[in-house]
């Protein structure tokens, strides 16, 4: 059997994973668009959902829909039990010490905003600094702009080098300059695919007395991530980018930090004793989950954890790594095509420019072939300025993509270039 092959583990890995079989789990991928097979290459925006996840959501509504943590009837107990089971799965998924450190959110954006409100606005003082990078998604930038303004703190930025990696010397220099209380960094760029050395960054930041928040929106979906291994203090990610439903995400935060933070939203569920003038808060993590949570999506996320665990995270990551390498090489081989970023460790978001064809025109042209990519600033306007362009094309891969889909993309890019006649 291939899996026993001692010489070529990657060949064994490839042969043991069958993306064609896996594709059958995804109803969306079975359709044709404009008479051609759907080629879905916008996975960094959101991934498709396997039947198991869709059914878990339906099954929840069909069998045990109830509000959680309130009533004492059968349905409420079952809904609460399942909801809390997913919290445990989420803790295991990212190597958190306890489910008490898992706060359910709507997604990464809400997770970052929660920390920006509940931690930054309480603890930052005038003169303090938040250290960010130029490759951050707007969702790991705007919340800090707002919090810094409110607290009288300042923002500092680590530049991106021409190869798409962070200027690590600048990171160290910013820390050495003092005053940095928090470093907030993406683990995997949604534009360049760059995987940042978060473990090293966290160690350096801690030495300088700063906490570390990791934007895991891209990374948690595509590579094994352990908060204990990274040594980060906060990590936020989204369910819908990893085969789960929309509207559910996770914020990991160290328990001792959650204890000291103020609530984010106020309302039901997050309270202990409520008076007319003053109230006290529920235990963590419930203190941060005001209102009826998105129970159905949480249960769908639980099904996504199970599904991905069964396929094997290492297996999926290895397949995506090979496919990404193939896609980058295939695009680089085309005349007039430039791929942005060349980090030694990278994920499956591949941004590129086509000489003479504006990204919106390319995306429109590809759509005519049933190929879905993303075109635009990708919620990273500062990074676009660093790259010197207003917009890019991005093809982003998942484990259900095939080499033949990459070939379809490359072929269509060549035809688009001929169609638009190499531009003005």
């Amino acid at each position: 059997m291939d899996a026993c092959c001692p010489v070529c583990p990657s060949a064994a890995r490839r042969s043991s994973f069958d993306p064609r079989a896996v594709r059958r789990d995804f109803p969306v991928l079975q359709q044709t668009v404009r008479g051609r097979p759907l080629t879905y290459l916008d996975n960094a925006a959101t991934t498709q959902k396997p039947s198991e996840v869709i059914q878990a959501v339906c099954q929840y509504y069909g069998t045990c829909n109830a509000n959680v943590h309130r009533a004492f009837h059968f349905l409420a107990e079952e809904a609460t039990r399942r909801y809390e089971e997913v919290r445990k799965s989420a803790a295991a998924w990212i190597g958190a010490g306890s489910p008490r450190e898992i706060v359910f959110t709507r997604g990464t954006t809400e997770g970052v905003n929660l920390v920006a409100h509940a931690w930054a606005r309480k603890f930052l003082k005038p003169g303090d600094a938040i250290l960010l990078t130029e490759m951050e998604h707007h969702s790991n930038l705007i919340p800090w702009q707002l919090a810094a303004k409110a607290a009288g703190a300042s923002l500092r930025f680590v530049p991106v080098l021409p190869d798409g990696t962070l200027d690590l010397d600048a990171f160290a220099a910013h820390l050495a300059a003092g005053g940095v209380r928090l470093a907030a960094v993406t683990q995997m760029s949604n534009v360049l695919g760059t995987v940042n050395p978060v473990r090293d960054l966290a160690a350096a930041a801690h030495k300088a007395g700063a906490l570390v928040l990791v934007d895991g929106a891209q990374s948690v979906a595509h590579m094994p991530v352990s908060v204990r291994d990274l040594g980060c203090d906060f990590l936020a990610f989204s369910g819908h980018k990893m085969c789960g439903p929309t509207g559910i995400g996770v914020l990991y935060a160290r328990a001792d930090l959650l204890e000291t933070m103020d609530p984010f939203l106020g309302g039901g569920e997050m309270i202990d004793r409520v008076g007319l003038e003053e109230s006290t808060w529920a235990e963590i993590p419930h203190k941060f989950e005001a209102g009826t949570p998105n129970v159905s999506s949480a249960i769908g996320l639980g099904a996504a954890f199970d599904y991905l665990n069964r396929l094997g995270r290492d297996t999926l990551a290895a397949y995506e790594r090979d496919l990404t390498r193939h896609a980058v090489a295939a695009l680089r081989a085309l005349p007039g095509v430039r791929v942005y970023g060349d980090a030694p460790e990278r994920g499956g978001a591949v941004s590129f420019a086509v000489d003479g064809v504006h990204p919106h025109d390319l995306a429109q042209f590809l759509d005519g072939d049933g190929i879905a990519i993303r075109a635009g600033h990708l919620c990273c306007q500062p990074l676009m300025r660093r790259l010197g362009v207003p917009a890019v094309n991005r093809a982003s891969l998942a484990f259900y993509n095939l080499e033949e889909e990459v070939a379809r993309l490359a072929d269509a890019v060549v035809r688009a270039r001929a169609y638009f006649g190499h531009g003005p």
Partner: protein
Amino acid sequence: MDLDALYQEVILDHYRSPRHAGAVADAEVAAEEVNPSCGDHIRLAVEVKDDRIAGVRHESHGCAISTAAASMMSEFAVGRTPDEFRRTADAFVAMMRGEREWDSQGMEDVEALSGVRDFPMRIKCATMCWHAMKKALEKADR
């Protein structure tokens, strides 16, 4: 969906060789528009003499539709009075939004943009330059 209905030959021709195009220095900018969803960007310089648009220069950084639209709009504008231009611009924008029946308003090449109406995400690409020109004329009037 027919891609050729969106990218008609006349549009691609204006895209490949835009008329009245050229760099616009900061000091001459009469109006500037940006489409925040895609970063498309147009800068206009305009000259009005004796109540006639005597010259237009546009610097467009954008897709085929927005570049071609700026080229066609500039061709149309030269020789018109600002009032004529404004009336046609308002009619054009209303047509693109589907708020009024399409008629070419005596503009030949501009007819080719009618296909853009079937692509709602792209309508702003075709209308941005007309808004920019109206702004530029306001400034020239003052």
